[in-house]
């Protein structure tokens, strides 16, 4: 049976603010030693009250705008209760009932085509500290405590590991360019909800959650492992699937159960009375929109994801004609990064010699793509491609005809033809002997063998000349 993978993602992203979410301590990246960036507030001492960092709200709203969310004008904080030594207050301040952003959407481009991933919500929360285990004792480090996070929750819209990785790369790229997060190692952490169902089925299968992964590679591997485990369970009844939380072990490449439903904690969420509801009025929202970095263009993101450099992206984004040319050749089948190099390096170089710029470029997408395709197919080498491009740019010639005319196609290339001739000579010793014995007609047989090898594409005169020379 064919199965369909259904995945939903919860992604925690550490925000690039100067201070923590509810106090004025610097972020943990500023810390050298454990408990360097700690004050009475973020270490849970009595008497301190949380004071909202306005910049956190602004970055969360910016992220929501990038992910096409509705920005909720009334947003509140809740407390989530659980005991753990790295959580100094024994509760985490997060958002449950009125998250800051809801109902967004991200469009992904993958090998399977264009896919829309719905964003359920984005909420703000504080991070926990960490435990350091050593010798007889475990130690707590509160540097990371109260570092601001946003959690982005998707609907179960992913259908493959590839889509998940594409999505995460897109978030990373967007958030970096938008100044929302540096997305460094560990600053982006994912919980993956995964289930498998028979293809065509509307019902969801049994769902498992893989917690707290930060490497994209591990996420991809974990999804593939877990999907296979689910499919094996369904297909061969290897085990009974249960709804549970699992963790991924990188060393073994396997996921394993952490805790099951029965023992799952009741977090006793309730509103945080110390933090007044935040009201985002029109004026503030407009201000945030106005400050949203210009580079967070959807198109720039696509270019960046394709591996095009920031400098090249700037050139493309600032010149609509050029970016359209690139989009057109990409639509025809060109590789975006490669296409960008043909335009921004090669075409620009040709024009520069005549004191012109890319604004003066006159070339159709069809002609440019014809050149690129010849190179990509291996018909001509890159240098030959450049020669053709010069003629196209300067004289608007037809690239294929010009290639033939100039003998740039490998089929017209002396060295390529020589190889064919050598092969024909080696494979027809009798004809060679006959020719050397004076039978001129034997040359015709060798010529025929070459033409057959070249599928009739060679230049007959050239082949004959070369063949005669070889046999001398």
């Amino acid at each position, binding site marked *: 049976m064919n199965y369909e993978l259904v995945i939903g993602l919860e992604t925690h992203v550490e925000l690039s603010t100067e201070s923590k979410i509810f106090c004025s301590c610097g972020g943990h990246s500023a810390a050298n030693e454990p408990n360097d960036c700690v004050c009475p507030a973020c270490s849970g001492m009595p*008497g301190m009250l949380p*004071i909202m960092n306005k910049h956190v709200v602004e970055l969360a709203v910016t992220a929501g705008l990038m992910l096409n969310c509705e920005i909720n004008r009334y947003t509140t904080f809740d407390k989530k209760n659980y*005991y753990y030594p790295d959580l100094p207050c024994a509760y985490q301040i997060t958002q449950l009932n009125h998250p800051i952003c809801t109902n967004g959407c991200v469009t992904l481009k993958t090998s399977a085509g264009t896919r829309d991933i719905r964003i359920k919500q984005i909420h703000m929360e504080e991070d926990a500290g960490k435990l350091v285990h050593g010798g007889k004792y475990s130690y707590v480090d509160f540097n990371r405590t109260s570092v601001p996070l946003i959690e982005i929750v998707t609907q179960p819209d992913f259908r493959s590991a590839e889509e998940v990785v594409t999505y995460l790369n897109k978030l990373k790229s967007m958030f970096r360019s938008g100044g929302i997060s540096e997305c460094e190692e560990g600053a982006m952490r994912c919980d993956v909800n995964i289930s498998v169902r028979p293809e065509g089925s509307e019902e969801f299968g049994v769902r498992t959650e893989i917690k707290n992964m930060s490497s994209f590679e591990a996420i991809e591997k974990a999804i593939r492992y877990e999907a296979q485990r689910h499919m094996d369970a369904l297909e061969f009844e290897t085990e009974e699937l249960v709804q549970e939380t699992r963790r991924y072990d990188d060393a073994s490449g396997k996921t394993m159960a952490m805790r099951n439903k029965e023992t799952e904690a*009741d977090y006793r969420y309730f509103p945080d009375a110390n933090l007044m509801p935040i009201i985002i009025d029109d004026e503030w929202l407009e201000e945030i929109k106005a400050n949203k970095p210009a580079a967070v263009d959807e198109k720039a993101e696509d270019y960046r994801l394709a591996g095009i450099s920031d400098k090249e992206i700037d050139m493309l984004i600032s010149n609509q004609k050029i970016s359209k040319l690139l989009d057109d050749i990409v639509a025809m089948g060109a590789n975006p990064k490669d296409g960008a190099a043909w335009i921004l390096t090669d075409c620009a170089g040709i024009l520069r010699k005549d004191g012109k710029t890319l604004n003066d470029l006159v070339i159709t997408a069809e002609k440019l793509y014809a050149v690129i395709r010849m190179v990509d197919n291996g018909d001509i080498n890159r240098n030959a491609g450049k020669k053709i491009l010069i003629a196209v740019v300067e004289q608007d010639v037809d690239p294929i005809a010009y290639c033939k005319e100039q003998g740039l196609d490998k089929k017209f290339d002396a060295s390529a033809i020589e190889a064919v001739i050598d092969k024909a000579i080696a494979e027809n010793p009798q004809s060679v002997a006959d020719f050397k014995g004076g039978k001129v007609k034997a040359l015709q047989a060798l010529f025929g063998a070459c033409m057959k090898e070249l599928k009739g594409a060679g230049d007959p005169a050239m082949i004959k000349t070369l063949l005669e020379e070889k046999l001398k």
Partner: protein
Amino acid sequence: MNYYKTKIADGNIAVDDMILVKDAEASAGSKMLTGFKPLFSAEAVTRLENKGYKIAGKTNVGEFGLDLLGEFSYGAEAEGTLKGAAAEAVASGEVKAALAVDMNGAARRAAAISGIDFLKPTYGTVSRYGVISCAASGEQIGVYAQNASGVKEIMDVIAGHDEKDGTSLKNESYDYSFHSVSGKKVAIIKELVEKADDETKKRINAFADALRAQGVTIEEISFDVFAVVNTAWQILMTAETCNNISRYDGVKFGHRAKEYKNIDELYVNSRTEGFNFLTKAVIMYGSDVLSKNRYEACYDKSLKVRRVMAEKFEELMKQYDAVLMPAASQTAYEAYDIHEAFGKVFNESIFTALANLIGVPALISGGVQLMGKHFSEGLLLSLADSVERKGE
């Protein structure tokens, strides 16, 4: 009586042990916080010190302020007739005034019994920065003094916006000046008077007569909301307290059990040893009302009650300027067993809960209680002042 948990200096202000004074041990009356020395002072304390007042010491409180009158303070359990330590320090003339956290009635009951004044101001007027927080949504620092003008003097210093408290209102200062009370209308709440003993009823009548003498109109009315109000506040108070004191876990500071084999035992043993029976009852009650199955029926419902009661009281305050009622059912309490504490406090806080639930001010004077709408402190103080000065 020994008022102080920690004596600091020869000063004129006492501060109860729920409020932080830099470097002075702050135990909140609990074994759990024994030895805890704060790195900073409460905003109210700092403001007083900046105006030249001197903190005399930290007065004993019942563990986390949860009991009737401070009787279950770790290491200073009361015997015989109960008195509130901060209130007594003021009543005896030891200090001019005292700061105390008003959360579940203990501070107001103590003032009523001692016969001094205590103002629990409108929620958000005095910074909660430096309060060992329990019930964040309704607790507020209040002021004990010999009389209304003594309360006003301290309120003029400590009230006003503080950026270190997100619930602090934006007003930089408040006008607590006294005005003529002639022509004002005050309602006596029948249902609460009926719950009080004869001595308390006498005090209510005497206070009402004194007000009449100042030209105030007094009417007895029925306003039968207090059972619901009290239940709602006990739910919010226990839930918030349970949550706020969960940070006292033996990991970072305060009491840690000597015996434990793993982190769960460290938590359980430290907290079992560190909290008294009443605190444990509050934790159990608070955990229960926040649990998934009970949240909607308990906590969420209480938030709705809070909104509805705020509207109802505002409606009432369109007809009257203030209400007059007892602050407690008795004028004296004897020491009792801690296992009875949860029920006793629950029953007594019916008189005090409204001000905590909806954030309105309450003033104790002459052993009785006045409440008014938000920001009516000036009027409440004027009413008390007019009674206190009669004959002058």
